[in-house]
């Protein structure tokens, strides 16, 4: 079930009311959430429950074992490595086995060999990329001493499988989540209101905007691109940039809102990335939970920027390439990651850690143009298609006949408006009419009426579910 489907609201209503009914029994509340999470995840496919249970067991056992051993001991390091390796192996098998099998098959065939293996079409469990990373976060955080290993498997299970953020993040750090399980939250109107605000904005992003942007994107990218004009390819790419942002940011906001209703605070995952004026800043605003995870668990352990410039560039490339691969088992995602890695390396080389050679406006344009061009391989089905679209940007491509509606060129204005309103650049509205009760409730009624009219009857899954 996805957050915008009616069945989710029924599920949420039951879980929410039961949770607060049990407000004097914290352990029961947590067990309820665990059960609800199992139902939520099993709704996708009950078979997936076995795999997530395995990952939970591995991380729980690994952390507990490491707790019993002195830091630095060889056996401890071995078990920790094994625990992380098993989690990564699960991800590798279910997400990347077919990719590597097909790629190596193609490569060997091109070299004149005839490998006997083929892809086995392994079903990709939804959310695996997210919960494996959370499991690794738990193992590493306990190993580092940021968090004590938890003897109760139910708590570890809830951390890894907490339904608001299970299938598409945000990736929550163990060190920030576990203390929240120990605290008994207090039901309050403020809690409801803040959760509702996040959920409502997320719902607007996802159901109101992202799903209604799909008609600008899919007819182009899912078709033979030669049918489409250069402006259509450019327009569809712009629309995709908006779609993926509203889709993913929307899901994250809804997850944050839902979690808040249960007294859990999940960090924000997006901070108006299309307002960033350099690439490093973009990655501090886009999918913040993933980029910070990669920074803390991959980039810094590799050496970060502590070594020479060349080592830093290597670390940036490795981190971003793997980050690209995390998004999907296809070379187009690897290319996307590599482009961003190269872009970050160039940014570091040209600008150092501070200062710019060009003004903010120019820097913003260059950065956003770069980001837009990198969305092309992310969305395209193949490199041929990606090249087709890139050539459209240069004008060096024979334009096809089909055009997109002119309204597509106003999509960037929506992103600008979103950033301006969200960052309170337009007006600070603490004391405006929107805070007035009548204006609030009346405005909410109008908004709900409009959202219903734009509600996607054919519920689109979240774009990031495929990751």
């Amino acid at each position, binding site marked *: 079930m996805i957050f915008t489907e009616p069945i989710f609201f029924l599920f949420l209503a039951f879980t929410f009311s039961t949770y607060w009914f049990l407000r004097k029994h914290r352990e029961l509340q947590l067990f309820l959430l665990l059960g609800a999470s199992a139902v939520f995840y099993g709704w996708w496919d009950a078979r997936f429950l076995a795999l997530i249970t395995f990952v939970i067991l591995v991380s729980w056992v690994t952390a507990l074992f490491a707790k019993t051993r002195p830091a630095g001991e060889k056996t401890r390091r071995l078990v920790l490595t094994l625990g992380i390796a098993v989690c990564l192996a699960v991800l590798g098998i279910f997400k990347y086995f077919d990719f590597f099998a097909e790629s190596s098959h193609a490569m060997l065939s091109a070299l004149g060999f005839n490998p006997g293996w083929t892809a086995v079409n392994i079903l990709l469990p939804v959310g695996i990329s997210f919960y494996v990373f959370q499991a690794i976060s738990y193992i590493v955080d306990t190993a580092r001493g940021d968090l004590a290993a938890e003897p109760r498997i139910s708590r570890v299970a809830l951390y890894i499988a907490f339904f608001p953020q299970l299938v598409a993040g945000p990736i929550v750090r163990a060190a920030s989540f576990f203390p929240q399980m120990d605290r008994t939250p207090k039901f309050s109107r403020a809690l409801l209101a803040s959760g509702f605000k996040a959920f409502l904005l997320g719902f607007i992003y996802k159901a109101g905007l992202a799903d209604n942007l799909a008609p600008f994107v899919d007819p182009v990218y899912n078709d033979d691109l030669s049918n489409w004009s250069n402006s259509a390819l450019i327009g569809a790419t712009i629309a995709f940039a908006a779609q993926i942002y509203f889709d993913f940011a929307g899901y994250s906001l809804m997850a944050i809102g839902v979690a808040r209703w249960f007294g859990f605070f999940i960090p924000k995952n997006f901070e108006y990335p299309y307002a960033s004026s350099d690439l490093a800043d973009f990655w501090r605003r886009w999918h913040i939970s993933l980029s910070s995870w990669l920074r803390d668990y991959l980039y810094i352990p590799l050496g970060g920027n502590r070594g020479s410039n060349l080592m830093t560039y290597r670390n940036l490339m490795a981190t971003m390439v793997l980050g690209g691969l995390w998004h999907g088992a296809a070379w187009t995602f690897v290319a996307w990651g590599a482009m961003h890695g190269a872009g970050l390396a160039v940014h570091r080389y040209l600008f150092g850690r501070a200062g710019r050679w060009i003004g903010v406006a120019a820097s913003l344009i260059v950065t956003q143009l770069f980001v837009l061009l990198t969305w092309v391989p992310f969305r395209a089905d193949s490199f041929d298609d990606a090249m087709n679209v890139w050539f459209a940007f240069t004008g060096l491509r024979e334009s096809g006949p089909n055009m997109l509606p002119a*309204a597509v060129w106003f999509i960037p204005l*929506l992103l600008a408006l979103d950033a301006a309103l969200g960052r309170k650049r337009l007006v600070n509205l603490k004391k405006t009419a929107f805070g007035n009760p009548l204006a609030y409730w009346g405005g909410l009624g109008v908004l709900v009426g409009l959202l219903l009219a734009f509600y996607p009857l054919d519920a689109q899954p979240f774009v990031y579910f495929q990751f």
Partner: protein
Amino acid sequence: MNWVFILFAVVALAFGHLLRVSNRSSLLLGFGTFLAGLIASIALVRVFTERADIVRATGFDGILNHGLERAAMDDAPIIVFSGASYSRNGIDADRLTTLLRARGYPHRVINLSMEAGSLMERREYIELFMERSPKTPDTFFIEIAHETDYKPAFIFGNSKFSNRAINQFDVNATAWTLAGFKDGGCVGLADCIKQIGLLGAHAVLNTMNIGVLSQGEPRSEVDTLKPYEGPTEARDDIPAGERNASLSAGKAREAQDGPNWALSVRQLQREYLSTKGVEKIGYYFPPVVPEDLRTYSASLCEGELSAFTCIVADDPTLLAKLDQPVWQDRTHLLADGAKIYGDWLIEELIASGILGPEEIAP
């Protein structure tokens, strides 16, 4: 529509970012204000979509547009057949037009039929056709079937919460459907609770305009859809013995009226068509294998609809010709079956006198 989306997106983003609840708000006043805002925006969307003729497009809109296209092709008088899937499979309008013209009748046949077309849905599309057609049909034939008389919410068995299902249940259709449930349209307490529950949900979704702007497009821009597709592959294998027994089972027609609600709907429909200038209204039912379904429609012809031209495919000669593998399943014809039925139907139409005298010299 795209500009409507952009406008909506601006408004939604503004509201989403700017709305902030005040701790001073009273729940009752808040709820009342919320309801007022909701009703205002629902009304606004409804007025806009009706003025701009924006609908959640369905196949029936495509069939409507196809029919309108056909009606505008020439000055010939029009015969319209309005039915459900029995008719969608059985009425090859283009072929019937050719046959009629070969027999000296200038009429153009239009098939306005869609599978799972309930009485209410077909009523709506008949009215839409009448409003948009470049000329008034000379003759209207309306399908009569047990299934649509006794399953007012037929669509729930096919596609609940689809565009078609939501479109169908406006206030008027909901009221009639409830009347249909009262007249035997639901069987047993559990079924009635389920049907009424679904009806209520769909009526609410219809009222709230759900998805009308995300799925919507101007009705006139919906791509045309040919009603008759001439299927050539059977869905069910009907044993020859069963087919023969059913098709050769003759039961005398006993005069019967349909359930009150269906009787009333047909009466109002005739009044509507008459006020719109349709002078000739008839009823029909294509061939089916199950004898009880044929008998039901035939009995309506003897009873409720005895004053009208009523052509039910229970002629033994016709049924004997259909006693071969010309069936898609027990209630729908394949293309070969539709040809046999079409030949017979033309003779019946001519014999009934409803078409008037020949106008084209043979």
